[in-house]
Structure formats: C-alpha cells, structure tokens
C-alpha cells in the first residue's frame, strides 16, 4: 500500500494518482512505457480499479468512454463501434476461451488480483491474430513477490457477498501466489411486473495460481492456472401455452499456461510458452408445467497453443520473431460431430527506438487450413515534437475467421420454431429437406451461401499526445476502420411447417470512424480531474449506396405515406452511440482519504428497426441517451482499506435494452493486507 503518512510532495501525489507501473506490455509484446510506444494504449491501473470498488471486468469497463458494454448472450465489449466478437480478451497475454454467440462474457472475469488492464484499440491481428480485429484487452495480473496475504470483501445488493483472498510467498528465486474469489449475486429485477428477474442469481468461483522460478540468472520459468466456475439461474415466462421456464447454466473454464524464458546474452532472448484452455457450458431449461425441455446445450471447447518467440536487440532496434500453432476442438450437441481445426502462425515485429521518434512494424501470417490464410500487417510511427508533445499515425489490417458456430452449428429450436445452420452444414441439410419436400420457399438464393471468408479490416489512426512533469496528460486520436465481408445471419428458407432456417453469410461492408479525446489534469496535489470523450460514426456502406441511389424509403409516422431517406436520416449501425463522455474528479487527502465522483454519459443509440426498412432512421428506434453518476470513498488505515460508495446515483435503469446496468447500488467493502517482509 502506498504510504500516505510521512512527507508529501508533488512527486508523491503524482505517484498516488498515476499507477506506479505505467509499463505497457500489450502493444508491442514487450514492456514499454506509453511515451516510447507509437500506439496509444488505455491503461486502467490497480488504483483506479480499487477506487471504483469494481469487482468484475464489466463494472470497470462500463465506466470508460470509448468502450461500451453490450448485452448479447452475456455482457460483451464494443470498441471503436465494433461488436464483442472482434475484441480479443487476454489474461497475462493468453486468450480467454468460451464465447457464446461471439460474446466473451465479461462477468466471468474478476479484478481482485489484477495489476492493470491494457486496452489497445484498433487492429491488433498483426500480433494477436483472429478476433483482435477491433483491438485487445489484456488483463495483467499481479506478479508474485514477497510473502504475505490479503483478504478483501465487497458487499452490495448485487454482490452479496464478494469474498477475495490472496496468499503469496516469494524468495529471490521462487515466487508463488494463489488468488481466490467467490461471488454470490442474488441478481436484480428492474421490471417486477414480469415473471423472473432482469438478471437472475448466480454464484461464481475463481481460482488463479501463479508460479515463477528463476532457474539461473538468465533462465526463468513461469506457470499459471486459472479456473472459473459459474452457476447462473434462469427463470422466465413463455406463452402459447403459458408456462414458466427454469433451469441452470453451468460454465466452467480452465486456463493453464507455462513458459520458459532464457537470455542467451544481452542481445538475444528466447521464450517458449504453452497454454491449454477449456470452456464447458451445460444448460438445461425446462417448462415447469409441461416438463418439456425448452432448451438444452452441452458445449465443450478446448485450445492448445504452443508459441515460440525470439527477441533480438541490436542498439536501438528490437527484432521480434514468433511462431506457434493453435489446436481447437469443440464437442457439442449442437454440432453433428466433434469439430477440430489446427492452424499454424508466425509473426514478426521490428521496433526502432530513436530519441525523437519510434517506429513499430509488425506482420502476422495465420494459416487456417480449411478456410483461408491471412496476412495482417501493421505500421505505427510516433514523432516527439518536444518534451511534452508528440504526434503519431498508424495503419493496420485485421481479420477474423468464421468461428465454429458460423461454420458448423446445427441447431433447431423447435419451441421457438427456427433452425440455425453453419454455412458448411447448410447445403447437406437443405438437400435433405428438399428431398423430403419440407422446404416451402427460399428467401435467399441458397447458392449464395458457400465457402465463408474471414472478415477483414483496414484501419488507420492519427494521434497527438501531451504529457508534462506535473502529471497532466492529454491525448486526441482519430480513427477509421473499414470492414468487409462482415458475416451476417440471414433467413435462408422457410420450411413447410413455417419454421425459418437461418445461416451465415459474408455480406456487409461497414465502416466505423471517430475521434477520441482523453485528458487528466492535476488541479492541485490533492485534486485530479480526468475526462474523456468519444465521437463515433458506424455505417453500413451498402445502405449508404442505396440511400444515394434514392432506394431507401420509410413511412412518414403521421401520414403513413412513403418518403425517401437521406444520409442525414440514417442513424448507422444499431447499438452505437454517437457521443460518449466521462468526467471524474478525485480528491486524495494527506490523511489517507480518497473521494471520487464520476459521471458517464452516453447519447441515444438504436435498438431495432421498427418501420420495416431494416435500417436505423426513426426516432422511435432509439433508446434515449443517459447519464450515470458514481461516488466512492476510500480510507487507508495501516494495513487496512475501507471503502464505500454508491454506483448509479440517479438510479438510471432500462430493463429491456440495458439489462446489464442495475439500478442504484450502494456498496461497502474492506481490504486487509499483511506482508511478512517486502522484497521491493
């Protein structure tokens, strides 16, 4: 814990506000300070996480501008206007497994042992491959050091309780730590009129163990195991006939990684890492009256990923070379057979550090045998105008391969009356149905559905950076992402029983562009003001073309007569806000108190087409903009931290469109840390 007694200088106050280790790993796969990186990276440090009282990743991401949490089969993250599918989420550099419908549920990630969260926006496929088209969120957990333990507890209506414990033991050569988190949430109900809660109760256990051994002066061995076990209740009402559906979703996640790192000399370093991850999801939902199965799912996914890396340092040049492979396997009752794929990859990066400028050039080659291979390049440059100001630019290409769901899913929901087929499954199933004369009508030419291609992006950014010795910072960034071959879900055919058959297709071309601004200002040694803002445009290019051709119409809501749409009427992609802003004021007293008030604002966003032209244009198709206020107080006292606060001061809620935001939520918590001896 940072001491708040003793003498208090300007330097100390900066250290209190700015997290000690502003060293970033994600952007270049090497430890670099923000100043030396030609790529802007947003860092949320331990101090900020602690101050907010956030327990899960989504709690802290919800409070950032330029990041949006969206509720689609779990709570996912939307960056630069791109859906959760396109952001890779890593823990200590290893990708997390277990996406439902493309969304990696952020509620499965707890923050108790997190050192910092690094958010790299824009394409990162050149280092991280598929899924990093929109960017990367890398959760860096604490490195074990010293010996001691820590207990922490948070209590609020939605976390009742959260318990955390961590024990670490370290010598000069051998370091280990074990972290555990248990959360029970009774859920919450924003709409008591309907049966079932908005978010049903769940409990979740996380265990994360880490080991590192300095085998010799030049050789280090690391290992880690992370396990998450979550049980989520479900309860909701159905009609036709009226019944109540209940059941549990069980999710289990394992991630084991080990690595060997060796310095041959001061110029050459080799690393070998292997990770194995699994994700298990079991779901059984039953109609209580009729005892019919409403929905069931068994899903088991495994990844094995060995990766070799070489770092070669020559004066101001660092050359990085890596190669690896990824084996993926999925067994599920929604797939005909066990699906497997293996893909080798290789990447390289050249970093050039000069006193006045930096350059980072990287490229990665991914060979997906059954689909297509991808080459993802990226180039970033930064020039320092003087001690305070620097400017930079970047360009990169990203990709995302179709996932197993989009290729092989074979799922029929007989209750809701639809069928979803992966593109590889579609031809045989359609031929089968056709031979039995079960197809009533094709809604789209089925020949269009064939070999699926990766989704590809082409992105550019410009930025300007200011920072001074007093701890003030400012950054402005303009970005643009052009994505083609976006995969869409489309109804292909109607069966004779009226059920629709859906499948996946490379279809759209979209772009997202915007401006992001962030700044922090030390008003006085005790006061800090931070704010950020993002302006975003996300548009479907094909829709724009149709609008320009005068082919897009809507009905005037009053006369019901058709009118022609203009570009001005088009609201872009659904679920994107044009404006997002955040402002935060922090006070840190000499006596160990810290008080923080935060406000976030998000402008209106579209939720669905209501007037039948399938695009966002009418005012009624938007969820109104909203603001949320947060207040938290923290007191450091010896080895203790006490905290309390209120999230969502104004009790904003929207059960239908923002179920992931609970109403007003007071919380209290404490932390006790004991160190036998510190080796810092």
């Amino acid at each position, binding site marked *: 814990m940072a001491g708040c007694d003793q003498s208090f200088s300007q330097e100390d106050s900066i250290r209190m506000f700015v997290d000690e280790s502003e060293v970033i790993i994600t952007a270049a796969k090497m430890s670099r300070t923000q100043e030396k990186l030609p790529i802007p990276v947003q860092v949320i440090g331990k101090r900020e996480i602690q101050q907010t009282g956030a327990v899960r990743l989504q709690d802290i991401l919800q409070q950032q501008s330029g990041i949006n949490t969206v509720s689609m089969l779990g709570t996912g993250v939307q960056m630069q206007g791109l859906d959760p599918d396109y952001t890779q989420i890593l823990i200590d550099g290893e990708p997390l497994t277990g996406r439902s419908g493309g969304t990696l549920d952020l509620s499965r990630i707890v923050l108790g042992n997190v050192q910092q969260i690094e958010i790299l926006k824009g394409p990162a496929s050149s280092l991280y491959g598929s899924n990093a088209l929109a960017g990367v969120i890398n959760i860096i957990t604490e490195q074990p050091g010293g010996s001691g333990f820590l207990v922490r507890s948070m209590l609020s209506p939605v976390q009742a309780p959260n318990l955390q414990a961590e024990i670490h033991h370290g010598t000069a050569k051998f370091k280990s730590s074990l972290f555990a988190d248990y959360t029970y949430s009774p859920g919450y109900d924003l709409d008591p009129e309907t049966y079932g809660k908005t978010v049903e109760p769940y409990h979740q256990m996380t265990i994360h163990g880490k080991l590192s051994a300095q085998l010799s002066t030049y050789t280090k061995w690391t290992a880690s195991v992370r396990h998450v076990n979550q049980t989520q209740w479900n309860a909701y009402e159905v009609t036709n006939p009226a019944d109540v559906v209940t059941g549990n979703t069980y999710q289990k996640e394992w991630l084991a990684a080990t690595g060997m790192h060796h310095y041959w000399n001061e110029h050459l370093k080799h690393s070998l890492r292997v990770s194995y991850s699994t994700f298990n999801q079991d779901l059984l939902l039953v109609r209580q009256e009729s005892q019919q199965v409403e929905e069931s799912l068994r899903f088991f996914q495994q990844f094995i990923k060995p990766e070799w890396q070489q770092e070669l340092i020559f004066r101001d040049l660092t050359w990085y070379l890596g190669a690896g492979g990824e084996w993926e396997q999925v067994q599920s009752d929604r797939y005909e057979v066990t699906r497997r794929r293996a893909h080798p990859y290789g990447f390289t990066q050249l970093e050039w550090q000069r006193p006045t400028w930096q350059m980072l050039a990287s490229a990665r080659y991914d060979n997906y045998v059954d689909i297509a291979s991808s080459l993802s390049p990226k180039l970033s440059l930064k020039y320092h105008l003087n001690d305070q100001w620097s400017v930079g630019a970047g360009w990169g290409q990203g990709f995302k391969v179709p996932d197993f769901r989009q290729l092989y899913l074979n799922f029929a929901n007989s209750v809701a009356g639809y069928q979803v087929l992966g593109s590889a499954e579609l031809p045989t199933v359609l031929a089968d149905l056709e031979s039995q004369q079960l197809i009533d009508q094709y*809604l789209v030419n089925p020949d269009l559905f064939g070999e699926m291609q990766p989704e590809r992006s082409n992105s550019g950014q410009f930025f300007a950076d200011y920072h001074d010795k007093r701890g003030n910072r400012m950054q402005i960034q303009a970005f643009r992402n052009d994505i083609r071959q976006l995969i869409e879900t489309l109804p292909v055919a109607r069966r004779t029983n009226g059920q629709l058959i859906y499948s996946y297709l490379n279809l759209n071309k979209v772009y997202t562009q915007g401006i992001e601004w962030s700044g922090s200002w030390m008003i006085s040694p005790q006061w800090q003001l931070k704010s950020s803002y993002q302006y975003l445009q996300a548009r479907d290019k094909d829709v724009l073309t149709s609008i320009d051709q005068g082919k897009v119409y809507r009905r005037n809501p009053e006369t*019901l007569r058709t*009118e022609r749409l203009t570009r001005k009427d088009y609201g872009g992609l659904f679920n994107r806000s044009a404006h997002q802003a955040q402002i935060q004021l922090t006070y840190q007293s000499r006596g160990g108190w810290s008080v923080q008030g935060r406000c976030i604002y998000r402008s209106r966003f579209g939720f669905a087409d209501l007037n*039948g032209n399938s695009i966002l244009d009418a005012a009624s198709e938007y969820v109104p903009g909203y603001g949320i206020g947060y207040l938290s107080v923290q007191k450091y006292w010896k080895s203790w931290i006490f905290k309390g606060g209120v999230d969502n001061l104004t009790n904003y809620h929207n059960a239908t469109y923002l179920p992931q935001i609970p109403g007003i939520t007071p919380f209290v918590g404490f932390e006790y840390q004991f160190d036998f001896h510190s080796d810092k």
Partner: protein
Amino acid sequence: MKHNALLGIAFLLVGLVACKKDNSVTPSDPLTVQEVDNLFAPNDEIDRETGEILQTNDFVKFSFSTNGIVTDDSWDLAFKGTKILVNGGTGSDNVNRNGNGGAIIKDGIFEEMTTAPDDGEYRQDSGTDLAIPTGSNNGWYVYNDAAYLITPIAGKVIFVRTHDGKYAKLEILSYYKDAPATPDPFTDQAATYTFRFIYQTDGSKNLQ
C-alpha cells in the same frame, strides 16, 4: 356502296371521338387520390397447436371502379390475411379469375410514379406464385417475428391492371385497424387494410 358509306361515317365518328378524347386528356387534371380505410379481410382461423383450420374465410373482393367490395366477377383485387390476388391467371384458392387483371410491384414514391408500366411487365397469379408475392420481404410487407408485426414495406407501389384492362396504382399504408402509427399486434385488429390508390377510368396508362 351503302356499306362503305356507313363504314366511312363510322370511321369519322371514331376519329372525332378519339380527337375529342385526346383534346380532353392532354392538359389532364390530376386524378384524385382515393383512400380505402379498414378493409377487413381476415385469414382462416387456424388452431396454432394442430394446424387444423377451424373456420374458413372468403377472400374479400375489391373493385377500383366502384371503390368498394363486390361479390361478382368484376373484382380487381381480392384480400385475405396478407394474401392479395389479382383477377387474372390461375390459382388454387377457389377464387374465379375471369378477368385479364395483373399486377406488378415497383420501388418508388407513389406521387412520382405517374405512368403505369408496359403491359408486358404485369404478372398474373399462377398456382401459389401470386402476382403480388406473399411472404415477408417478398412482396408488399415485412414480418417482424420479434414484435409479431406486419408492416407494409415503404416504397412499394403496386400497379394493377384491373379485370377489364384499366390501370391503377396503390400504396398499402397499414395492415391494422385505423392505421395506428405504432400498431400493437396484440390489441389492434390485423388483416385490416388501409391503402390509397389512383384509378384511371379512361383505360390509359396515365396515373398522375
């Protein structure tokens, strides 16, 4: 000779009539836009569990010339649920098509489309393939299966050749009773058409 003279007079008369007609059409007054409100054409009642038809309903037949419902063969369009038939072609729906009607759906704005398409473009019903196709996003409407809502697609103008070879254009405005701006499929009566049309009585393709 007498025969020839008669023929000559006949030609002359026809010519005169034709000329007179042309003279009156050229500076044509805009035709009036007429509106049909709440034409109720319920579908068969079906047991949703078994698919069994509980009650069969007849097509509701509409005539442009009378701007009303007819029961004889002088109908131009017949409505039932989301299905719309033309009086021309064949069908498997127990409706007599004695006329030479047809229809074609065009994309555009009702007011801007002032001339009926060429005769070759009109489609007639044949079996289950209707001139005005059924199905969501195939013809005149889109079905939102999340909101259970039928919405007429904006920018769809239906040109109709009537049973007696005249022309009309129409735009369907609503599928729900009293054409609410935001219909509620659970409370607003469905299969209740509101549409506006222009009907040309003189047989020309002018629909301005």
